[in-house]
């Protein structure tokens, strides 16, 4: 069985630059800033905006607590959202910190800008999180007759880079796993469809299937998906802390 280091070294040795024209999978759309899912009003009149579930839960709980307070006789329900105490909101939000998360040093995440930090970037198929997994799988299972030596375009002339970037982004935004993985495979297969010859198309589909299998069925991918969910939760929480003027 190939070890990651061996696989990576082998990849480096046999990597080739494909000078022919390449059919590429399209790049993903630029990530949008995470939508506000709940908003409220503080006693001082400032707005509270939440993009993550921790913040939304804290705000909802505080609003519900205000609404549950007994109303004076003949009082009417207010037309606007109940106001919340800003200081208490920040304390509660700090308490809701995801495990292992730092408000001052969150992981990079699509669509979230942290002052002084590098923005999140997709890294294709050949570097970053899945590179070793893809290399391991390809070098163990793929037919050497077809493998180009380039993880971004394992079938010669068909680039999977855009598909890999899209999958990176989908997971990094905590997308639904099965949906992200299916889109990943379809994106690769669509690029393969441009190949005219049936055997070539089939071999290209085989690589798409291997990449899909690597991200959908392996223990390593299970762990990676869980990590991406945690990273997104942390990034959103830190963003909500920052945007709402709360200190960690």
């Amino acid at each position, binding site marked *: 069985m190939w070890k990651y280091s061996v696989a990576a070294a082998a990849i480096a040795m046999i990597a080739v630059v494909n000078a022919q024209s390449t059919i590429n999978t399209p790049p993903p759309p630029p990530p949008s800033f995470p939508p506000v899912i709940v908003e409220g009003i503080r006693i001082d009149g400032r707005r509270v905006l939440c993009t993550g579930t921790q913040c939304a839960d804290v705000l909802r709980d505080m609003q519900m607590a205000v609404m549950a307070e007994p109303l004076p006789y003949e009082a009417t329900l207010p037309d606007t959202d109940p106001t919340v105490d800003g200081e208490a909101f920040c304390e509660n939000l700090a308490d809701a910190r995801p495990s292992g998360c730092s408000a001052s040093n969150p992981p990079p995440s699509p669509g979230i800008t942290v002052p002084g930090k590098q923005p999140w970037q997709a890294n294709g198929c050949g570097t970053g999180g899945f590179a070793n997994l893809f290399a391991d799988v390809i070098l163990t299972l793929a037919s050497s007759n077809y493998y180009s030596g380039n993880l971004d375009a394992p079938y010669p002339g068909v680039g999977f880079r855009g598909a890999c970037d899209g999958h990176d982004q989908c997971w990094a935004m905590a997308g639904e796993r099965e949906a992200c993985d299916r889109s990943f495979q379809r994106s690769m297969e669509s690029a393969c469809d441009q190949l005219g010859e049936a055997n070539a198309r089939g071999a290209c589909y085989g690589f798409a*299937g291997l990449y899909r299998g690597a991200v959908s069925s392996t223990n390593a991918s299970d762990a990676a998906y869980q990590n991406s969910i945690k990273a997104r939760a942390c990034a959103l929480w830190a963003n909500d802390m920052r945007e709402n003027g709360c200190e960690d």
Partner: protein
Amino acid sequence: MDVDATPSTQSDERVAETASVPTQHSTPSGHIALPQSLRLPGLDSVRAAQSWREAVSRYSEDEQRYLSARSAAYFHVLQFGSEQQQRQMIEQGFPMPEEWLAARNIPDHELKQLAEAGNAKAQMFYIDRSISVLSAVLSQRGLDTENAQDMQLLQLYASVSAMTHQRLTESKSPFAAYQDGLFETRTSRTQTPEPFAASIHIAAELGHAGADQLSNVFYQQHPGLNPGTVMHFYQSMRRQIGRP
């Protein structure tokens, strides 16, 4: 199962065009000829029946149990209620009881060879058998890339997922849609039912008469279905069959 990462490409590209062409071979009385492009070797026709239940009742208890299990695995999409419906489903690529039983006796390596050689019906049974193998493992645990046997399963996953998608794209058959949905549902780590729900809608668009009724039952049986995920798979499958 012994498998290869590269799926066959000499598949049933001709299914859609030839499935409705009547066979020129003589067919025994009371039998329905199978489309030329949808035959296992040595099985040219199946017996006509008024229902799936009637067709199944002709077999031994063991065979009936097997057929019931296959029907249940596909949420009973294999069933028909009239000879007319049986004929339509045969043209649409749905395997009949005789074919399930014939395929049951084909060893893994022979079935794989037939599938890779482009026999469309063999591909259906190869996909079916492979889904069972993969589901048994993936419903319990993920694959370990350090384990040689698991890597063989990953290779099987790769080849069968590609073959399943290719069958739907090229044949545009309702049964291929159901197999695509079943593959996605049974090989997902959470066995999520949404892909199969999406495949029911695609099968309805591709002309499966029983799809609407199945849809009602399926949604009742799976009340927590995520509509967004169903829609995602539905749109993906629609693009596969060339519909925007």
